[in-house]
């Protein structure tokens, strides 16, 4: 390999990994939005996956093939604890209940010595790479695409458009919502485990409010018409700050404005890939 190419790949290795991981995070937001709900706990789920995977690797020395699925269990349990009461209620409750989740977990990470406190966990070996990150992304995309084409997908779309009508037509709205939230927790937890195993250090302050909003902006920018759209949204928003480093001051302003503009003027996202047209 020529030196410049090697340098190039090395320079952008973290960005390439981040594209895959953020794609998974965008999907974890997509599955919730697809049933007409909003969860702001994606970053918290990710953090749980990151912390539990790091502990499993460092303390129990388990192989990554075991660590990765095991790390999705804690986020799923939390999703159950929060989703069960709130999904009975109107959509804002899930959003509000999850908005604080990241902050609470932060308090837990800080106060439990085994979790490293403020110093976080460092020295995590680099176990994840192109194969695990992009393999998982492709599998997730394929599964979600098949689901969206199936009867389940049509039920989900019906719920999104008109929940009451969907319920009347015999769609078990609550079960779909909980299922979506759990799937979302699995995806975010796995993304967390992957990210912990590419960056050697995780800290307690990385999974709070701002990353949660950023993940939302991925999915909104892309739109939720198909699972590919939110991934594309994540890629744009991951690459943009790298391309526009000179405007670093305004990066968060920009992320916020994207959400505003998309919700107000482009309800289908920037990339309204209408899947129904492909299918029919």
């Amino acid at each position, binding site marked *: 390999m020529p030196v410049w190419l090697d340098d190039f790949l*090395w*320079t*952008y290795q*973290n960005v390439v990994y981040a594209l895959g991981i953020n794609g998974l995070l965008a999907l974890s937001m997509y599955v919730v939005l697809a049933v007409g709900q909003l969860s702001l706990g994606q970053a918290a789920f990710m953090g749980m996956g990151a912390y539990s995977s790091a502990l499993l690797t460092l303390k129990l020395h388990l192989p990554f093939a075991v660590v990765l699925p095991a790390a999705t269990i804690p986020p799923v349990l939390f999703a159950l604890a929060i989703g069960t009461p709130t999904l009975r209620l109107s959509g804002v409750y899930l959003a509000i209940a999850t908005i604080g989740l990241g902050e609470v977990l932060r308090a837990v990470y800080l106060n439990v010595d085994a979790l490293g*406190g*403020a110093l*976080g966990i460092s020295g995590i070996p680099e176990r994840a790479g192109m194969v695990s990150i992009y393999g998982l992304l492709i599998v997730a995309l394929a599964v979600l695409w098949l689901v969206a084409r199936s009867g389940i997908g049509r039920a989900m779309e019906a719920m999104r458009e008109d929940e009451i009508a969907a319920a009347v037509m015999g769609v078990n709205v609550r079960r779909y919502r909980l299922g979506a939230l759990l799937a979302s927790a699995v995806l975010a937890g796995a993304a967390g485990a992957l990210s912990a195993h590419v960056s050697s*250090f995780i*800290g307690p302050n990385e999974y709070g409010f701002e990353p949660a909003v950023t993940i939302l902006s991925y999915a909104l920018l892309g739109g939720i018409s198909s699972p590919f759209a939110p991934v594309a949204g994540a890629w744009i928003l991951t690459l943009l700050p790298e391309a526009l480093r*000179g405007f670093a001051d305004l990066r968060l302003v920009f992320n916020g404005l994207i959400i505003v503009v998309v919700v107000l003027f482009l309800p289908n996202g920037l990339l309204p890939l209408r899947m129904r047209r492909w299918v029919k």
Partner: protein
Amino acid sequence: MKRTHFLAGAAALVASAALPSLAAAQVQVGAIEILTGPAAAYGIAIKAGLDLALAEVNAKGVLGGQKIVLTVEDSAGNKDQAINAARKLIGRDKAVIIIGPTLSNEMFAVGPVTNERKVPTVGTSTTAAGITEMGPYIFRTSLPESDVVPVTFKKAQARGVKTIALMYANDDAFSKSGFDVMKAAAEKLGLKILTIETFGSKDTDFAAQLTKIKALKPDAIGISALVEPVSGVVLQARQLGIGKETLLLGGNGANSPKLGDIAGAAADGMLVGSPWFIAKPDAVNTKFVADFKAKYGKDPDQFAAQAYDTMKIVAQAIDRAGAADSEKITAALGKTDFSGVMGPFKFTAGRDPASSEGVVVLEMRGGKFAIAQ
């Protein structure tokens, strides 16, 4: 300020495009600092210190007249952006040495990356334990708290302190490390620790913790946190009637003129150990303070002072290395023998600052620091 910065950047771009021969005679130095987001104050102070020193260095140049080009990348306090910045600085800008990043947490993420590439990395503000143990290319010019805090505590003991309560912000590595050092220093000196209370860096209400401490009547309260929460704690301690009979002791974070700005007279009597002091009378320091004020219109703080020295230490190491080569610069850095605004400076074999002679204990009086008697 923004505009001049942009223009300077544009001018540099044009110059480097038009005159490739000039571009070849430049030394690329990278810095990773927090320039945006809630913790931007530190990175901005550091960048100001670096820029000030850079202007002086480039007046003469290094390696026989070459200019140092300093590229400062924003990490926004975010680990991933810090890593991306390090990879970009090394892989694309071909920086031969990196200054920063600002926070210890960021250094824990960036250190393994730069160390893998054997690019020397010099922290100017990373005081947490374990930073330089990450690898043979990781240096720091900031005195770890373990060199500063014991000096303060000894002074307190000399004033008759026998019992102490400790408070710290438990959500950042800097404050937690500072607390660990305070606890060790208190135990070593035989001070009785009455209680240990925590709070969050963004908290504004500390009444519950302080009321508890007040009831225990300690001789002193040691506080490890960044300056903003420390000021809040001090203000509220006075409001709750914790008077001058209780000595307040600060760590590295309290060592900022902002303590006086925010807490005012409430902070009077607080003791803070510092590797640097704005009113240090030597010529190097008075010039630095005057130049800084002239350029930025405000007093420098310790972060700016450390950055100022670091830029010069780095420039000297490049000069002594004889080439813009990371490996040679690393070796030269190890042999640093420098005297700057912080006083005489050398690295230990473990790449930490060698001497803590420069540490002074400061006391707040009328909202300003003065040498404690």
